[in-house]
């Protein structure tokens, strides 16, 4: 029941807003639907806390510790983003950058995007997982090109073609997976259910599964933004409206990575070798290093944090690739704190860019004098994402590094250097933005800084204390990932 609501509210929201999205109160309707989704997700979470994993609707839906916290996180960040988007989009509208019709498209697609992500997270069917990942791309293409500027059209085109090709590889991987499963489980849709596959993963044909995993990793990896398949990511983040950047970075990348992890569990079971782990570690490390070195060359603040997302996704992929209870635990924790911190940063950056009338780093100066809340929000967010203690990012990165020292000592110096380079690049750029000489004007509406501080507060809390049931989920999910 709760589950139907979790999917039903965003779907209904998408339909209602397709008709009413241009109304004056559309932003409030949008927030209301996101709030309802969040409440439904909270109820679902409570149910899982009480009764354990759930298998619903003819086993088509599966909710276990690995995805329940992602469902809650997705609903939560979706809600706070809708709160942020209310004043943000209103200012964009008042500046004449968006017409009412485009606002309608924006609001409707925002809800549909939540729907596709929640479906991808909860489905038990690997085929439906693919379908909803593709649908998530489709709903965001028009959001990235919302401003219809040459740059945004280019970004959206690149996003569509690259992710489309990538996800086609994932479909081939899914076909191979089905091919291997059919031999053991027989035909029909039962053979694509993850729980069934998980039960017989030891009997799946290793040659087919290794090929399938490579295709799936490359396919879903394109959406995670792993180097060298990352080209769409900075463009899409920089050119789309800021609330969209926040949900792309904070949520979509997580969902794509979740798909990779589900596939890894199956491949691990079938292969009895470390091939999937090695592949993920390789892609992860490459992403961390390349992104870290690209950071210092960025002139656009949203591109800067887009690259930072690639870096963090690389760290998480590396952690899951390394495997073991501690590294997987840290990877899950990092997923949570990264998505909270990164979306908070995008909220602050969005308002800063509106104040200064530009996304160029050189044009944003002296935020602390213009608006202390935006300035502090950006500064604290940047420090948190750079892994300063006591933020949650510090805790997870510390766990990943210490495990790497034990398990994969060769990787530790590479990681440390990349993290150092990233620190220098981001801190060096954010510092003058916050403390330099101001250049900008006032905003017509009050900025929505509450979501920023809620997110940062949660990140701080996760750095100091993880609620026992959350820790228990992480532990169980980590055991599952292996």
């Amino acid at each position: 029941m709760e589950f139907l609501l979790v999917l039903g509210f965003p779907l209904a929201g998408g339909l209602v807003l397709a008709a009413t999205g241009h109304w004056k109160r559309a932003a409030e309707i949008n927030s209301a639907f996101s709030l309802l989704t969040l409440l439904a997700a909270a109820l679902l979470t409570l149910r899982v806390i009480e009764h354990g994993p759930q298998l619903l609707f003819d086993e088509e839906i599966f909710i276990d510790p690995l995805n329940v916290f992602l469902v809650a996180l997705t609903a939560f960040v979706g809600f706070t983003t809708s709160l942020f988007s209310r004043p943000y989009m209103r200012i964009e509208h008042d500046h004449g950058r968006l017409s009412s019709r485009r606002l309608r498209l924006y609001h409707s697609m925002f809800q549909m995007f939540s729907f596709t992500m929640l479906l991808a997270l909860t489905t038990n069917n690997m085929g439906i997982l693919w379908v909803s990942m593709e649908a998530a791309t489709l709903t965001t293409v028009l959001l990235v090109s919302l401003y219809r500027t040459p740059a945004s059209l280019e970004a959206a085109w690149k996003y569509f073609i690259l992710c489309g090709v990538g996800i086609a590889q994932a479909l081939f991987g899914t076909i191979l997976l089905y091919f291997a499963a059919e031999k053991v489980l027989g035909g029909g849709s039962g053979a694509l259910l993850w729980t069934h596959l998980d039960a017989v993963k030891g009997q799946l044909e290793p040659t087919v599964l290794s090929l399938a995993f490579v295709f799936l990793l490359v396919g879903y990896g394109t959406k995670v933004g792993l180097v060298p398949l990352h080209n769409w990511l900075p463009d899409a983040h920089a050119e789309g409206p800021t609330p969209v950047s926040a949900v792309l970075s904070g949520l979509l990348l997580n969902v794509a990575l979740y798909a990779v992890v589900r596939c890894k569990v199956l491949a691990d079971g079938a292969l009895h070798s470390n091939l999937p782990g090695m592949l993920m570690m390789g892609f992860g490390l490459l992403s961390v290093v390349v992104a870290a070195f690209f950071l210092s060359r960025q002139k656009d603040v949203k591109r800067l944090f887009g690259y930072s997302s690639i870096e963090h996704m690389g760290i998480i992929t590396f952690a899951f690739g390394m495997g073991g209870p501690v590294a997987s635990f840290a990877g899950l924790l990092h997923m949570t704190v990264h998505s909270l911190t990164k979306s908070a940063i995008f909220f602050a950056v969005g308002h800063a860019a509106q104040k200064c009338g530009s996304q160029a780093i050189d044009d944003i100066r002296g935020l602390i004098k213009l608006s202390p809340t935006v300035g502090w929000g950006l500064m604290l967010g940047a420090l948190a994402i750079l892994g300063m203690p006591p933020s949650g990012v510090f805790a997870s990165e510390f766990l990943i590094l210490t495990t790497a020292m034990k398990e994969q000592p060769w990787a530790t110096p590479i990681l440390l250097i990349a993290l150092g380079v990233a620190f220098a690049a981001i801190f060096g750029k954010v510092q003058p933005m916050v403390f330099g000489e101001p250049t900008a004007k006032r905003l017509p509406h009050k900025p929505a800084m509450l979501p920023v501080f809620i997110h940062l507060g949660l990140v701080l809390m996760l750095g100091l204390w993880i609620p026992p049931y959350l820790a228990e989920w992480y532990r169980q999910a980590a055991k599952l990932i292996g």
Partner: protein
Amino acid sequence: MNGHLPLYAQVINLLAAMLLLLSFAMLAQRRILSLINLFMAQGMVLFASTVVVAAATGQHHLYWSALLTLVLKVMLLPWILHRLIRRLNVKWDVETLINIPTTMMIGLVLVIFSFNLALPISALAGTITRSTLGVALAAVMLAFLMMITRSKAVPQVIGFLAMENGLFFAATSATYGMPMVVELGIALDVLVGMVILGVFFFQIREQFDSLDIRHLEQLKED
């Protein structure tokens, strides 16, 4: 085993060969209208092969996916594409970034690569269509190549759709098709994607007065 293949398998192999031939024809085709017609022909071949596989194996759900192919890939998508190019008034010929003979050579290498990749899997397959998996993979690769070598938006999209054709063929030949829910979902995605792209073409044209995607190369690292 040659010469003793059952009739069904021979027909399917013939259709697979036609699919591959059409992929090469698309790769070499310069005119946009012919490209759409070739895409439609590919849809027809796909439909025919799905029906034959269904008849040969008695898998009834394959008739449904054949019907889906017929409606979507032979009727709906070519119709949308024709309408689009009429509305957009595109008359130009397709330009390629690499000349066509070179592209064909690369295509040949890709086909050999695909057959090699598919060999161990085909050996495991128990389906009567197993020898066509290499063809399916080759069709995917050739469509991919076409997307890379074309500089205009519409041919790129046709390449994208041809890639989906190859994947569909792979699913039919390796496993007698995916479960029906999944196939419906994929078809829905393709259709929605096509509609969104249609909208998108108009946006690009409005902005650049052209559908040449070389205009879309401004965002670079500097």
